[in-house]
C-alpha cells in the first residue's frame, strides 16, 4: 500500500528476494512511482520531466509481474487477511506492506483556503505552482525548513521575488545548529530572498485569489502566490483503524515488522524503534525509506535483514549541496570546519558528551563521506580528533 519510494522498493526487493507469488502495488497517483526530492528543485524549475523522474519504467513492472493498481486502500481486515480499495476491489494478502507516506501539513488560518495557496508533495502540486510562478511575480513561502528553502532557491531561479516567513527564531531551527541556520539565511539573502524569522502569519487575504499575508503585528506582505512548507503528517489512519501500534508513525522493529507479524511498514509513515538511538525515530528521507523497504521485503520473504544503515539526508539549494550524516538530536556542542560566515563550503560536526554523532556538510562531500563512514562503523571520534582534522 503506497506507491512512492518505499512501496516501489518493497515491490522490487520482493522479487530480488525471490518472492514468487503475486505482487500488487496500490497507489493513488496516476504516474509511475517517482523521485520526490526533485519536486522542489529540478522539477519546479522545469529541468526534468515526469518521465525522467520515474524510479523505474513501465516495462520493469511488467517484466517483474508487479501489478500496479491506482486506488487508495479504504480498510484493512487483518483477521481475513485482505484489504479493500476505493475501487471496491478486495485484495487478499499473505504479507502486507504499509508504505502510506504522509501529506503536507495544512495551514488553518483565516484565508488559508484561498486560491493561490499551494502545498508541495506531488507532481500535480508542482505543476499547479509552475503555472503561476512567472518571472517578476511575488511568492511568499511559509516555513523555513528544507522544502521552503529549496523552493525559495528554485523560485529565485525562475525570476520571482521571494519572501520566506519562518515563525521560529531561525530557519532550519528543528534540524540544524545556529551556525548552519545563519549560513543559509545569509546565502538566501545574498540571492535576493527576503528571509523573515519570528514572522508569524496571522491571516491570508485576497479576493479571487490570495493577495496578502498579514503578520502578527500587522505588517502586510503583498503576494501573488503562497507556498506552505510546514512539515508532513504521516498517513497512519488505516493502521490505527486496523488496531496496529501507532506512535507518531506506524511502529516497526528492526525487521520493519509492525505489531502484526504479517504486516510490515516502511518510509515516512513508519516510526522505527532504532537500536542505534534507543528510541522511536520517524525519518522523512529517501535513503531511509529504501533501507526500511529492503528490510520489509526480506522479512516478508522470511529472511533476516535488520535495518542497519545510518540515517542520512541531502538538500540542494543554489550551488550548495548539503549532505547530512546521522541524527544530531541531543547534541551538546559543535565543531565547525571552514568559515560559514564568509565561504560557501564548510562542515558542522555535532558532538554529544564529547563524541561525534552527526555532521552537516555543505559542498564538502569528502567530510560527509568520512563522517558517514565513521558513524556507520561506530568509530568513536572525539573532539580532539575533530579539531586535528579541522587544523589539518
Amino acid at each position, binding site marked *: 500500500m503506497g506507491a512512492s519510494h518505499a512501496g516501489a522498493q518493497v515491490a522490487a526487493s520482493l522479487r530480488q528476494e525471490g518472492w514468487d507469488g503475486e505482487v500488487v502495488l496500490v497507489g493513488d497517483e496516476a504516474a509511475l512511482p517517482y523521485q520526490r*526530492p526533485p519536486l522542489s528543485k529540478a522539477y519546479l524549475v522545469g529541468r526534468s520531466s515526469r518521465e525522467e523522474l520515474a524510479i523505474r519504467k513501465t516495462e520493469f513492472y511488467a517484466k517483474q509481474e508487479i501489478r500496479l493498481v491506482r486506488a487508495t486502500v479504504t480498510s484493512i481486515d487483518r483477521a481475513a487477511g485482505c484489504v479493500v480499495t476505493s475501487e471496491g476491489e478486495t485484495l487478499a494478502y499473505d504479507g502486507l506492506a504499509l508504505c502510506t507516506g504522509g501529506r503536507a501539513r495544512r495551514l488553518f488560518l483565516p484565508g488559508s483556503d484561498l486560491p493561490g495557496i499551494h502545498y508541495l508533495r506531488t507532481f500535480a502540486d508542482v505543476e499547479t505552482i509552475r503555472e503561476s510562478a512567472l518571472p517578476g511575480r511575488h511568492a511568499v513561502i511559509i516555513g523555513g525548513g528544507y522544502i521552503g528553502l529549496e523552493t525559495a532557491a528554485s523560485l529565485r531561479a525562475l525570476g520571482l521575488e521571494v519572501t520566506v516567513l519562518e515563525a521560529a527564531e531561525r530557519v532550519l531551527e528543528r534540524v540544524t545548529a545556529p551556525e548552519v541556520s545563519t549560513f543559509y539565511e545569509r546565502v538566501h539573502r545574498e540571492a535576493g530572498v527576503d528571509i523573515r524569522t519570528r514572522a508569524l502569519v496571522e491571516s491570508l487575504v485576497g479576493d479571487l485569489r490570495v493577495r496578502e499575508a498579514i503578520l502578527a503585528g500587522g505588517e502586510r506582505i503583498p503576494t501573488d502566490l503562497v507556498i506552505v512548507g510546514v512539515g508532513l503528517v504521516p498517513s497512519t489512519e488505516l493502521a490505527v483503524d486496523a488496531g496496529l501500534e501507532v506512535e507518531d508513525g506506524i511502529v516497526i522493529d528492526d525487521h520493519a515488522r509492525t505489531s502484526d507479524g504479517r504486516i510490515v511498514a516502511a518510509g515516512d509513515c513508519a516510526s522505527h524503534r532504532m537500536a542505534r538511538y534507543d528510541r522511536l525515530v520517524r525519518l522523512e528521507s*529517501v535513503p531511509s525509506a529504501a533501507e526500511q523497504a529492503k528490510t520489509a521485503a526480506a522479512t516478508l520473504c522470511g529472511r533476516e535483514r535488520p535495518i542497519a544503515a545510518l540515517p542520512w539526508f541531502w538538500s*540542494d539549494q543554489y550551488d550548495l549541496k548539503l549532505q547530512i550524516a546521522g541524527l544530531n538530536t541531543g547534541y551538546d556542542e559543535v565543531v565547525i570546519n571552514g568559515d560559514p560566515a564568509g565561504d560557501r563550503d564548510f562542515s558542522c560536526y555535532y558532538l554529544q558528551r564529547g563524541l561525534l554523532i552527526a555532521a552537516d556538510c555543505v559542498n564538502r562531500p569528502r567530510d560527509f*563521506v568520512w563522517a558517514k563512514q565513521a558513524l556507520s562503523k561506530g568509530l568513536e571520534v572525539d573532539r580532539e580528533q575533530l579539531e586535528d582534522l579541522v587544523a589539518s
Partner: protein
Amino acid sequence: MSVVTFISHDGEKHEAPLEDGESLMQIAVSNMVPGIDGDCGGEAACGTCHVIVDDSWADAVGRSTSVEEEMLAMNPEREPTSRLSCQMTMSENCDGLVVRLPEFQM
C-alpha cells in the same frame, strides 16, 4: 541487443540491456542488479552506485568527474577507474562495457 555487464564482488555476472541515454546506475536499478543502490536517484549525493570500470574500457567511458572524485576520495575500495555509475551516460558505443562492483557501497 547492446549489453553492459556488472560483475559482483564475488564474481557473479549480471548482464543488462543497454539503454541509449540512460545512466549506468539507472540501467542497474531497472534490472535489479544487486549491489547498486542509487539511493539519491542520481544526484551524486550518496555514493551508493560505485563501480570500477574494467581497465580496457577506462579510456572509452572517461575518468571520474570532480564531483565524483570528491565522493570517492574517502572510499576505501576506491580504484583508479572507479566511477559513480549515476554520472555515466550510456550510448551505443558502450556496448560490451564491463564494470566490477565493490564489496560494500557507501
